[in-house]
């Protein structure tokens, strides 16, 4: 007999299932895609949203934290906004509709909706595991996105900005992006809200780097203070490929950004940098897994958290080194500035190493503003609020400056950070 426990669905679970039912017949997809969607939503219904009893969601009990989900609202999409870095090529997705005007040479793009309709998207819709709630929600409800290919050897001068601007309702988007051998590009995946109305956003990026590709990928999350943002990026690094992945969380009420990568080509390298600017009553989770599958791969991860008010931050980082992945070099650090008594941060760095000739390490620090440094700035006539903002900014500026090769990019990101700090510090 099936002893499955019957639990009452939460308001959010009901709303997500309802969103699916309400859009039946309207969600794009061929037979294979539609049956996959059905399975995903069925799984969501039976398993429910993950709770703290699911290990990978231990610090972000989504079932409790996600109180409600606004209904899908096709009118709830805002116009494009200016690119964060002047001169970027902007591609946008609104209500599932992709806008691919202004595509630079060497880049092809098509609407992900077409891939859903012709079924080529089916393989990518699978979840990463039974705990992949983001993959499940997104796969069930995704309406569109952008499928992008940067051709072999193409070097993009200006950044490519993938823009999703949401105001209310829901948005579920996907970005399958492939970089050909030797391609060089900066991509800014940008999620933002234009107002304070609650919205619910899920987004999955699926990125592959062929041999020798050298890519900067920035995830810039600037949702509103009532928004839920569930992001996921999956990536695969080919031989000698280099990915500099930079996550900035500067918004949202309930945020989880997952990063799941594989270093599957020898000589590949991941640089992960994350800046989490947390304030108000927000809850922000960055969960990272990287699997070093082959010998001679390297990775370095630095996470900087700035936590104000009653905000809560979570960082989970797991580096797996396969048995054959000798000479792996992996270093992970999570540093936090806790700026109020009620601010909170949970860090869980993990290493799982099956090879015996590797260099791996991790560390975590938590501190308050250094009072000697603060006094020094005050003693030069800099008022306290400004001095504090300078010190917090200094704490995160260091890792932005690593992008020094692109001055406009550094300036734009510094602008986002200082604008956030001016509002919150």
């Amino acid at each position, binding site marked *: 007999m099936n002893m499955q426990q019957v639990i009452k669905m939460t308001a959010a679970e009901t709303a997500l299932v309802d969103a699916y039912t309400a859009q039946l017949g309207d969600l794009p997809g061929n037979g294979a895609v539609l049956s996959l969607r059905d399975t995903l939503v069925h799984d969501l219904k039976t398993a429910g949203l993950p709770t703290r009893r699911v290990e990978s969601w231990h610090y972000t009990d989504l079932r409790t934290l996600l109180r409600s989900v606004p209904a899908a609202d096709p009118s709830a999409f805002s116009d494009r906004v200016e690119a964060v870095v002047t001169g970027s090529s902007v591609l946008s997705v609104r209500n599932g509709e992709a806008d691919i005007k202004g595509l630079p040479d060497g880049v092809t793009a098509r609407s992900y909706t077409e891939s859903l309709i012709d079924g080529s998207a089916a393989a990518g819709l699978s979840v990463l595991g039974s705990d992949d709630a983001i993959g499940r929600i997104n796969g069930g409800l995704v309406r569109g996105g952008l499928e992008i290919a940067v051709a072999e050897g193409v070097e993009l001068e200006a950044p490519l900005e993938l823009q999703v601007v949401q105001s209310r309702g829901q948005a579920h988007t996907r970005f399958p992006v492939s970089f050909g051998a030797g391609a060089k590009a900066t991509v800014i995946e940008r999620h933002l809200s234009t107002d304070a109305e609650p919205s619910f956003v899920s987004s999955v990026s699926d990125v592959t780097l062929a041999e020798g590709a050298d890519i900067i990928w920035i995830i810039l999350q600037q949702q509103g203070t009532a928004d839920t943002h569930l992001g996921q990026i999956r990536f695969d690094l080919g031989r000698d490929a280099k990915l500099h992945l930079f996550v900035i969380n500067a918004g949202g009420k309930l945020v989880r950004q997952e990063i799941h990568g594989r270093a599957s080509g020898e000589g590949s390298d991941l640089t992960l940098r994350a800046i989490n600017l947390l304030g108000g009553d927000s809850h922000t989770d960055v969960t990272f897994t990287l699997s070093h599958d082959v010998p001679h791969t390297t990775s370095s991860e630095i996470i900087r958290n700035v936590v104000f008010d009653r905000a809560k931050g979570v960082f989970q980082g797991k580096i797996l080194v396969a048995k054959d992945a000798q000479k792996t070099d992996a270093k992970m650090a999570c540093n936090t500035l806790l700026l109020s008594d009620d601010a909170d941060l949970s860090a869980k760095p993990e290493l799982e190493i099956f090879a015996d000739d590797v260099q791996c390490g991790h560390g975590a620090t938590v501190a308050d503003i250094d*009072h*000697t*440094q603060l*006094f*020094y*700035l*005050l*003693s*030069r*006539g*800099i*008022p*306290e609020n*400004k*001095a504090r903002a*300078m*010190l917090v*900014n*200094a*704490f*995160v*500026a*260091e890792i932005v400056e690593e992008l020094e090769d692109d001055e406009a990019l550094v300036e734009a990101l510094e602008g986002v950070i200082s604008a956030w700090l001016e509002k919150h510090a």
Partner: protein
Amino acid sequence: MLEIKNLHARIAEDGTEIIRGLDLTVKAGEVAAIMGPNGSGKSTLSYILSGREDYEVTEGDILYNGESILELDAAERAAKGIFLAFQYPVEIPGVATMQFLKVAMNEQRKYRGEDELSTPEFMRRVKEAAAELKIAPEMLRRPLNVGFSGGEKKRAEILQMALLEPKLCVLDETDSGLDIDALKVVADGVNSLRSPDRAVIVITHYQRLLDYIVPDTVHVLYRGQVVKSGDKTLAHELEAKGYADIIEAAA
């Protein structure tokens, strides 16, 4: 310019009394040296003057241009013209030296109701003052005090002093860690700032610095009090005989 009256102060955290009834007057245009053995309260006095919150004034007053400054925070005191050159300048990674200088200069100007400096005007002033103090432009491109040698840090303090144009300069053990050449550069920098409307308090353990920055008055601090005051000859006397006699006489 500065009048300290019967000042008593303690460490806020544990209540240890450091300053015990200190009186001191420094006039505009004067260079006053404060000397004394280790632990006499010299550095504490400099922190209290500049408004460090780790110390609590329990009695007495500090008048600056006739007004009590006890209620002002460190930033307000700085904007009113009180400058402390730190014994150990603080390294702040992630804050660019130039940005720091510009913010400090402009925040002080804002407080006083003056217009902010234009970027070219700011650059001109920094370049000029840096050249005087033999500070290489590369040093100014680094984060604040990060990777500076001991001598570079002290010169950077004097550079800040020159740019901020304070009225009351407090130099806390500015000679410590300096070789003789660096000492001369720093002393020249201080001497060039001497003016009839500016007072300088030089806190030092040794007579050496006072050969280069010649004081008008010398005060000996012991157990949180000024136990003896005199002119520059007092410094020489101390150099020759040590503090023992004065301390004994005071006890």
